[in-house]
């Protein structure tokens, strides 16, 4: 007799647990970022006004975005493999990356005299293509997903040039 009782009790308990899991799923979904937050994840940037060796800072998904137009001298100094990090639009070459140090997230400062970035927090350094030149950062500044639209870049959408950078390992997914 006690077996039937225990069995029914366990059957009920198990079935209730299923309901509990469904409720937990609904709770997890309530915690998800809202559609309006995800939709706000696109920014259009016009590259035309950028000047060579002058850092331009924009915002995308709340994060600072560095846009640095490369001058002929900067291109001459650059290693061949680092040129893969650049975006070419309308004859100009631009480094476009998330302005957060890949070490622990501080914003590195740009030094036009030496064409490099120095992160004040722990001394990390990057060249003008934003590839890392001095530890502790583990890699160059990350490149956001982008799509080229004339002389404009749409950050948040992907285009073939960005897909290639991902495939090459030039950048990790942001």
């Amino acid at each position, binding site marked *: 007799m006690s077996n039937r*009782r225990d069995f029914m*009790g366990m059957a*009920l308990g198990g079935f209730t647990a299923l309901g509990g899991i469904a409720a937990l799923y*609904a*709770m997890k*979904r*309530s*915690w*998800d970022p*809202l*559609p*309006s937050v995800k939709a706000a994840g696109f920014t259009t940037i016009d590259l035309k006004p950028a000047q060579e060796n002058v850092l331009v800072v924009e915002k995308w998904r709340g994060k600072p975005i560095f846009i640095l137009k490369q001058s002929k001298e900067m291109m001459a100094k650059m290693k061949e493999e680092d040129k893969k990090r650049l975006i070419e639009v309308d004859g100009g070459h631009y480094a476009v990356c998330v302005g957060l140090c890949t070490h622990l997230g501080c914003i590195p400062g740009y030094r036009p005299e030496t064409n490099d970035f120095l992160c004040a927090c722990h001394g990390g350094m990057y060249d003008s293509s934003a590839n890392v030149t001095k530890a502790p950062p583990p890699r160059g500044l990350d490149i956001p997903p982008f799509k080229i639209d004339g002389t404009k870049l749409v950050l948040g959408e992907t285009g073939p040039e960005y897909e290639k950078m991902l495939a090459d390992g030039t950048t990790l997914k942001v």
Partner: protein
Amino acid sequence: MAHFDENAKPFSHKWLDERLAIDTLNRVLSTEYWIPKNINFLWAMGMVLAATFGILLVSGIFLLMYYQPNTSMAFDSVNYTIMSEVGYGWLWRHVHGVGASVVFLIIYIHMFTGIYYGSYKRGRELIWLSGMLLFVLFSAEAFSGYMLPWGQMSYWAGMVITNLFSGGSLHADGLVEWIRGDYVPSQAFLNRFFMLHVLLLPLAIIGGIVLHFGTLRLPHVNNQDGEEFDFEEAAELYKAGKKKESKVIPFKPVFLSKDVFVMGIYFIIFFYLVFYHFEFAMDPVNFDPADGLKTPTHIYPEWYFLWSYEILRPFSTNVGLIAFAIAQVIFFTLPFMDRSPNVAPASRRGLFKYWFWALLVDMIILTFMGKLPPEGIWSTVGLVAALTFMALWILLPIITKNEKKL
């Protein structure tokens, strides 16, 4: 001195029992917590209330993640963000709104069960009083919660109810402004009622529930016949295996199994309302954003406040306020106004039987009248019902003093 066996495996049953007395707790709180066998499904309303409170708490947590207690954002944070953007936000909102209304139906059923069976006498006075305290706390929680969507009903209910504190001829306008934090219900008012609804009152309610359970422990739960018997003796019978002869059952698993079944029926009805029939809990008037320059044609409290609202309305300001104040506290006095020592169902208590049904019907009529516009025949019926309410309570000590001892 506690004894700790060094061979006991960490987190094993024995190990936990040495440290937390889980076996004792299990005995005292469930397997040897004795409930009379002679009960019906109405005895499960307490657990139904606890479950509903739990549902309100959990749904409230998810609403709290997105609600903005700011007069310009509150309405849309609920009706746009939560209802359309948040994953299952609409579900929490409907559950919370319907739950807040249904909980009062169960509270009234629970209360009237207690009145019918005399569960407020002979050692159970504090159970009744702590329960009435919980009723007041839940009322405050419901009122403060209703302010939050900042719709037309929120605003004007806030305006009217805080105006009550001006005390009629006392003209305590300073007090009213102090309560509101401003001349009219505004940002200050919204924020403080948000604080009350989300923190202070839930904590008080949890404390009240603990107190309510505590007051129940020694007198034990009542039974359908009001019979007084020896719980220890009945427990011994049960433990000896004489379950049919024993007058008690253990809370776990026997009473709990009936509780859970009643809760199942309740949840079917509850969720039917949540998904298909919720306008009674989410009144259309509150889907107009608050407008301090326009009073809606019809304002009324939520249904569970209507009976007491109607006691306020038919009289002149001062008389009405006094009647209203009396109506709020009169139920506290029940254990002392009922002068008969009989603990028995109302059906066996002579005139008290008629008193009980008259009170119930009168409160239902007051509820109806509280919703209707105070015009013509409705205001007359309301006046008669309010006077009847007062008369019934005056009659109670008289009726019960002369009640035959059972």
